[in-house]
C-alpha cells in the first residue's frame, strides 16, 4: 500500500473541521505534554490522540501505523544512543564492550525522551493527518507569521510533489537498467540521480519563474479569499 499523507489529509472525517481549532488544540496539547513531563500523562495522550485519529477522523489504521513507523525508528535509535552514551551517575548495567555503561541518569533520559515523543507524536499526527497544508498555511498567514516563510513553504509544498515524482521515475528508470543491482552500482546510480535532479531542479525553477512572471508576478504572492459558500 502506498502511503500518501497529503491524500489522507484531504480525505478524512475531520478535513473540514475548523483548522484554527485543530492548530490551537495541537499546540496546546504539545505544550501541556512537554510541560507536565509525566510518564503516565504521555501514555494517556498517546492513547487518546490515537483513538481520535483512528475513530473520530476515521483514518485507516495501516496508514496511521505507517505514519508512526518512520519517526518511531528515529526515536528508538536516538533513545538507544541516549541510554548508552549520555549521563553520569551510578552504573546500573555494564555492556562489557569498550566500557560502555548504562547509568541511572542515562536510563532516566532515555525513558523520559521516549515517552515524551510518544505522547507528542499523535498530537502532531492529528494536525498533519487531518488538515491539508493549504489550510494550515492560511491559518498561519492570518496569525501574521512572516509572509516570506509562508511563501517559501507554499512553493516548497507544491514543488515537492513534482520533485518526488521525478526522483521516483528516474529511480525506476535506473532500476530497469540494473542500476541498483549491487552496492557499488547503487552508489554510482544514486550519485548520478542526485546530480541530475539538482540540474533539473534549477531548470524547473527557471520555468516556474517564467510561468509566474507571465501572470504578472511581482515578487509577492497575493492572497485569495474564496467566496463564502451560501447555504
Amino acid at each position, binding site marked *: 500500500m502506498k502511503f500518501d499523507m*497529503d*491524500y489522507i489529509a*484531504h480525505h478524512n472525517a475531520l478535513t473540514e473541521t475548523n483548522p484554527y481549532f485543530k492548530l490551537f488544540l495541537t499546540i496546546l496539547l504539545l505544550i501541556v505534554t512537554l510541560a507536565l513531563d509525566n510518564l503516565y500523562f504521555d501514555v494517556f495522550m498517546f492513547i487518546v490522540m490515537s483513538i481520535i485519529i483512528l475513530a473520530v477522523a476515521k483514518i485507516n489504521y495501516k496508514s496511521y501505523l505507517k505514519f508512526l513507523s518512520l519517526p518511531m525508528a528515529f526515536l528508538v535509535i536516538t533513545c538507544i544512543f541516549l541510554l548508552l552514551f549520555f549521563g553520569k551517575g551510578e552504573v546500573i548495567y555494564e555492556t562489557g564492550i569498550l566500557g560502555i555503561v548504562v547509568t541511572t541518569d542515562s536510563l532516566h533520559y532515555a525513558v523520559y525522551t521516549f515517552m515524551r515523543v510518544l505522547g507528542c507524536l499523535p498530537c502532531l499526527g492529528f494536525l498533519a493527518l487531518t488538515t*491539508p*497544508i*493549504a489550510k494550515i*498555511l492560511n491559518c498561519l498567514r492570518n496569525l501574521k507569521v512572516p509572509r516570506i516563510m509562508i511563501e517559501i513553504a*507554499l*512553493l516548497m*509544498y*507544491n*514543488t515537492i*510533489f*513534482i520533485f518526488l515524482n521525478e526522483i521516483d521515475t528516474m529511480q525506476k528508470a535506473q532500476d530497469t537498467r540494473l542500476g541498483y543491482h549491487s552496492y557499488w552500482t547503487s552508489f554510482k546510480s544514486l550519485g548520478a540521480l542526485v546530480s541530475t535532479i539538482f540540474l533539473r531542479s534549477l531548470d*524547473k525553477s527557471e*520555468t*516556474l519563474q*517564467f*510561468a*509566474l*512572471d*507571465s*501572470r*504578472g*508576478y*511581482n515578487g509577492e*504572492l*497575493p*492572497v*485569495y*479569499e*474564496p*467566496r463564502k459558500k451560501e447555504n
Partner: protein
Amino acid sequence: MLEVKNIKYSYNADYQALKGVSLKIEKGEMVALLGKNGAGKSTLFLHLNGIYRPDEGQVFIDGEELKYDKKSLLKFRQKVGIVFQNPDDQIFAPTVEEDVAFGPLNLGLPMEEVQDRVEEALARVGMSGFEKTAPHHLSGGQKKRVAIAGILAMKPEIMVLDEPTAGLDPQGVVDLSILLNELNEEGITIVISTHEVDLVPNYAEKVFVLVDGLLIAEGTPKEIFAKPEILEQANLKVPIVTDLFQQLEREGFDMNGDYPLTIDEAKEKFLDLLNKN
C-alpha cells in the same frame, strides 16, 4: 493584433535560437506554429509577453511596441497569456482556485471581481467543483484545463499555447480542441505551437512553419500541406487522411490536386469518388 518584427535571440552567445523571425497574427485568428523539437517555438513564445527580451527586433501588440518596464509588462502580460507546455510548471498554488486567482490578483483587481473571474474561468473550462482540490490530485487533462483557466481569468486578448496536446489522451485532445475553438469564437486570438499535424487543419486558419530559428513558410493549411519540400525541411508530414488520398492518387485516382485535410473533407471526397465510378 500581434506582430513580431525580425526577432533574434541567442542563448549563451554561441547558440542562436531565433535568427530573425517576423510574423503577423490578426485579431480573432486561430493560428498554428509548426516546427520540430528545438526549432525555436518555445523561445519565440516567451518573447510574446516579454519574458525574453530579443537581442534584436521588436514585438507589437495592437500596434503598440512592447516595452520592458514593470508597468508596460503588466499591461502586455494581461493582453497576451501563455499556457505552458507542462501544467506542472505553471500551477503552483496549493488549491485550484488559488492558482486561477493568481493572475487576476496580480492585476490588482478587487476581491469580488477576482472571485467572479475564478468561478467563470473554471466553469468555462469545465472544472467547476474542483475549486478546493490540490492540483497534484488532478489528471493531466484536468491540470491542463486549470492552467488554461488561470490564463482565461486574466481576460487576455491573445492566448498562446505551447504544445497544448502534449501528454493528453485522445479524448483529452478532442475536448481541448473543442474548448479552444469555442474560445476563439468568443473573440480570443489563439496561437498554438505543435508538431502534431493531424488536428491542425481542424482549427488553424493559418499556419507558420519554423525551422532552426527561421520562419520558412506561412499560409493556409491547404497551401502548406501541399508543399512537400517545406514539410520535409521542417521534419513534418501531411495529416494522415491527406497521406491516404495522396497514395490513392498514385493508384490511379485523379484528385485534381485537391487533397482533403480533415476527416469531413475526406468523407466528401470519398463519396464523390464512389459516385464517379
